[in-house]
């Protein structure tokens, strides 16, 4: 048997619709859960403060727009500090170098948040793209 008849006789439409809906809803639920994990952890870690806040009900504090907020919950050092920390590492590499090499050496030296730091150095123009996937150190 061929064609639409074969699909209908074998319940193909229902299987496809049900299968697609199940996998989609499953991954939506999973993505929702994982998007909340860090919030739940934050609450758990700050549980004492949260409990006391409920007890005291302090006035709400307006959040300030800071450089750190742009980078999510990171408290990254300033670009100058990053330059200071990364310069000796970069000197060990031969120019031009790949970002993966910078990442590797940063990891080796236990630098905090290497992805974000490299990204920030790149945005600040310190890591200058050569257009072929390689970079050079371009300190002003």
């Amino acid at each position: 048997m061929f064609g639409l008849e074969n699909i209908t006789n074998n319940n193909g439409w229902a299987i496809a619709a049900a299968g697609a809906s199940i996998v989609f809803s499953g991954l939506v639920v999973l993505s929702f859960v994982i998007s909340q994990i860090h919030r739940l952890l934050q609450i758990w870690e700050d549980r004492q403060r949260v409990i006391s806040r409920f007890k005291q009900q302090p006035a709400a504090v307006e959040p300030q727009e800071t450089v750190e907020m742009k980078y999510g919950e990171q408290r990254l050092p300033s670009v100058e500090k990053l330059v200071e920390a990364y310069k000796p590492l970069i000197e060990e590499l031969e120019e031009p170098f790949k970002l993966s090499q910078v990442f590797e050496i940063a990891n080796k030296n236990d630098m905090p948040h290497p992805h974000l730091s490299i990204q920030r150095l790149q945005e600040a123009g310190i890591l200058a793209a050569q257009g072929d996937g390689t970079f050079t150190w371009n300190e002003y």
Partner: protein
Amino acid sequence: MFDLLFQFLVNTGYYLADYRNYIMLVVGCIFLYLGTAKKYEPLLLVPIGFGILVGNIPFFKGFGIGIYEPNSVLHYLYFGVTTGVYPSIVFMGLGAMTDFSSLLAQPKLMLLGAAAQMGIYFTLLGALFFGFAPKEAASIAIIGGADGPTSIFLTAKLAPHLIGPIAIAAYSYMALIPVIQPPIMRLLTTKKERLIKMPPARAVSKKELMIFPVAGVLLCCFLAPTALPLLGMLFLGNFLKECGVVNRLANTAQSAIIDTATIFLGFTVGCSTQADVFLTPKSLGIFFLGAVAFSIATASGLIFAKIMNLFLKEKINPLLGAAGVSAVPGSAREVHLMGLKEDPNNFLLMHGMACNSSGVIGSAICAGILWSFFI
């Protein structure tokens, strides 16, 4: 003595070979060429290519030599494929190698992994349309997940007689990602969309990384318990990596164990392409539908990313939708390269890996769902 020599000669491969063997030997050599010279998925294509050569050397049947003959050595090695043991082990290794931090940092990208699974269900309908039996159609459809071990696992459960062509089709299309995906990506996105830069992902804490495999296995396997052999092992491997107290086990899972399973999986799948079993009109149909499945999966991810952009304040680069198929890390790399072509400062690799890892989870869930529909 002349009789003895004659008898020996008629038992050699040279005498027993027919044109189908030669076709498959050429296919095996092409696989080896693509794997070694072009470096397309060499870890897969080299063992498979060599397996095709070994599986297609003609032999006198009844001596317990061939992969389909009971009690042959190859048959015992093939046991790991037909029972789904190798795919599960590969998944454990994959879990131990995968860093889910990019996914945890941007959970919305998981939806692209879900969208790319639509290729599976469109292909299911296509395979039924072309007259395949339902279990065969489900096995062919899973090629759209672009996940070799998952395809082999489901086919072993539903249509074991199709393992050879389905595995070869799945791995071929995975290896041909640099050929198949870029034209679809260019066709379905504008230059402006390809230039969209993704914001840097937030850093993910160690605790989150540890909780994820536990939450993942509970949520996914409660939903589709038939995906347990794949997802259970995937998340086990990932937990070994992230918990930090069993580094020896994690290191072994991500090196020796996955490598051993990959060698035997690739080699025996290659051997299973014995010409008389493999070269059938059905195989051609499977290859055609596999290409359709893979293309639809890529297109679904891209289109869904564009739909998401209609509602999102912070737009996502729609190229990432193409990484929703679970070919890790091939499709993420392709997305990254295309992003770089448009703008040398647009780095999409980590974001692509987020979609890729959700694609792995999604295709394993799909395999579980399809299996449960046909139990």
